């Protein structure tokens, strides 16, 4: 560090973080233009192939409909989540934030897609990679970053940190530090919903590493036995910390692991696939057919946490190739918007 850095080192308050994030908002503000006809004309997005287990494949749509307004909304949300993750990376490296920081950039399509498929009356609980879910559930970036810094204005009043972000009013039961512990808790929430007779579901997320924890099998058994309205989602980002799925799991078909709960495997890098599947899963649970299991294939650009570069077990060549070969939801939405604009321009 040179002298200049030491002199200019100062407290990064919330205003500074806001300034970093406001770049996003400036880029996102779209000019108002002729809304007649254009806003509401639908765009059809073909959905990728999915695999089912103990379900009828025909119950899931093959094409999703969207429009420009929706696309811009998704783009805003995903870019916000991406920028927040990059900002968290920066402030962690500046030592403004200490502790453990698990980033989910690359997985924004999953969190935004799930939110698009359920309502704010539904309940959500997830593991420690929870920044995106907090924003998706309706909280502000200020409260997220304040929580990371341990301030009283944070979403968990500074007590939880990056791993335990919660939002009571929108039924976000938080990130959870202990791997797999949130799944039985989610099952219990579903039991409470069923007992009250409300048309709601509980979405209970876990990762590919957590799938090997015993308590998940226990919770799934109880859910199927008592027909609880819970959707188990395995966010498969192919690496449990440093171990790839093939090396840690004998059965890598995570959507079949909670047998006899029916399962479906989808591509999480297509936000519309996630949204449509979530809608169908929600209908399934609310109609009283019991729990459902989803496996969402996705990818995280960062390592497991800030202390892991993520390169020793995913060589630089492989991870960059994946980046270029597979477009994420962000790229997809961007491409659709640009195609729409091109079409309009050509007309």
């Amino acid at each position, binding site marked *: 560090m040179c002298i200049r850095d030491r*002199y200019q080192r100062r407290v990064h308050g919330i205003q500074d973080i806001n300034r970093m994030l406001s770049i996003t908002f400036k880029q996102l503000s779209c000019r108002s233009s002729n809304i007649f006809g254009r806003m509401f004309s639908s765009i059809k997005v073909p959905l990728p192939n999915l695999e089912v287990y103990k379900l009828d494949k025909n119950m899931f749509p093959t094409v999703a409909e969207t429009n420009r307004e929706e696309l811009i909304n998704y783009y805003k949300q995903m870019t916000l989540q991406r920028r927040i993750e990059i900002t968290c990376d920066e402030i962690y490296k500046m030592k403004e934030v200490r502790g453990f920081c698990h980033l989910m950039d690359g997985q924004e399509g999953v969190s935004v897609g799930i939110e698009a498929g359920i309502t704010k009356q539904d309940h959500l609980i997830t593991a420690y990679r929870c920044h995106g879910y907090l924003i998706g559930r309706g909280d502000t970036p200020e409260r997220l970053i304040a929580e990371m810094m341990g301030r009283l204005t944070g979403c968990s009043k500074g007590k939880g940190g990056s791993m335990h972000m919660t939002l009571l009013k929108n039924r976000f039961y938080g990130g959870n530090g202990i*791997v797999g512990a949130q799944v039985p808790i989610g099952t219990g929430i579903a039991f409470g919903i069923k007992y009250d007779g409300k048309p709601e579901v509980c979405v209970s997320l876990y990762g590919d590493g957590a799938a090997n924890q015993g308590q998940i099998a226990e919770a799934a058994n109880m859910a199927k036995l008592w027909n609880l309205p819970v959707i188990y989602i395995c966010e498969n980002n192919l690496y*449990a910390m440093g171990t790839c799925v093939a090396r840690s799991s004998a059965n890598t078909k995570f959507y079949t692991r909670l047998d006899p709960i029916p399962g479906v495997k989808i591509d999480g890098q297509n936000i519309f696939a996630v949204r449509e599947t979530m809608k169908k899963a929600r209908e399934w649970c609310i109609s009283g057919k019991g729990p459902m299991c989803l496996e969402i294939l996705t990818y995280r650009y960062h390592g497991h946490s800030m202390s892991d570069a993520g390169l020793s077990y995913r060589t630089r060549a492989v991870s960059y190739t994946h980046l270029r070969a597979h477009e994420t939801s962000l790229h997809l939405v961007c491409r659709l918007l640009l195609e729409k604009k091109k079409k309009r321009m050509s007309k």
Partner: protein
Amino acid sequence: YQRRVHGDFMFKVLACKRALSLALLPKFSRTFSSGPAPLKMDFSEKVNTKEIVLKNPSKLKKMNICQSITNALDIALASNPNTYVYGEDVKFGGVFRCTVGLNEKYGTDRVFNTPLSEQGIIGFSVGLVAAGGVAIPEIQFGDYIFPAFDQFVNEVAKYRYRTNGLFNTGGICCRVAYGAVGHGGHYHSQTPEAHFMHTAGLTMVIPRNPIQAKGLLLASIRSPDPVIFFEPKILYRMSEDLVPEEDYEIPLRKAEVIKEGKDVTLLGYGASVRQLQMASKMAEEKGISCEIIDLRTILPYDFETIEKSVNKTGRLLITHEAPVTSGAGAEIAAKVQEKCFLHMKAPVKRVCGYDTPFPFVYEPFYLPNRVKIFDGIQELMAEQLTTSSQIPFKYCLLYTSPSPRDLSTSRMPSSA
């Protein structure tokens, strides 16, 4: 020639400017709270020749705890071909780099990764050693030991008892990275030894520096009883010593008196021993001579050494990072007051963590640091030092009119 002189001169000016700026930079420009800065002390120790008998005493290598553990595992794997080292992410070297190079040297059938199932790992170890192997599983963080708690308490501890010695789980030595690390938060800083203290049949060992770590780990692996070996993760890189490169063992179930003294006995283990050493240095300036004991084996603990020391000094201060209620200190305090009551000059003092979940940002307030320990020492010596007025007035009235605020350092401040 003139330009070169000018260049040299500018270099000197800039160097002076830099030195001045570094000196004048405000030292308190951090934006987060922290505990008291550590005292500048040399914590490195020499090999205790009374305990450790070495064949080549001059063959030493500078290692930290991390490297000494790798060395110990290397020796264990080499000396017994039926030994297995496994755990989460152990193959590529481990998250703390304690198993670097072992997979390359001994192969994947002896050093391998397990899936993310602690209960499965320990249950699997019980079977492995019952069939005749020696298992060295690793639990990545002490906070994750709880899924395996059932296997430890109900299987590992009781297998020998319930089969009358026909089977035994003595081959297990489970390595656990535990303890506060400065930024761990709720689930990367816990000290779970108290939960296991209640279980007869288990042995728990905690080293304080690399020499102890290597010797104790080798003794634990070869011991005929199941051992949980807690490694203080904050000392993995911080604690460095000249460690003998050969195979040596340190006897288990024996505490070590690190420093002799006659006024107060300070008892601790793991990372707390450093805090005790710093506090005793502070106490020496006041003329208090402290005796420091490192417990090393927490269960079954060496009560003889403690008894001998407390009978000599009459005062005991116990410290550990775990919460105070029913921690390891509580058990030792109860036993001490039972056996050494008539020799005691003051009640046993426990300077431990508070009874809360391990905090996220309040860690510097929570941990028992050298200042809290020094405060406790002064309290114990209150009667002695009252007349010489070397201590604050609040302690002078200690045994005549104690006020709860003056007395207790192990309760949360009321304003919190």
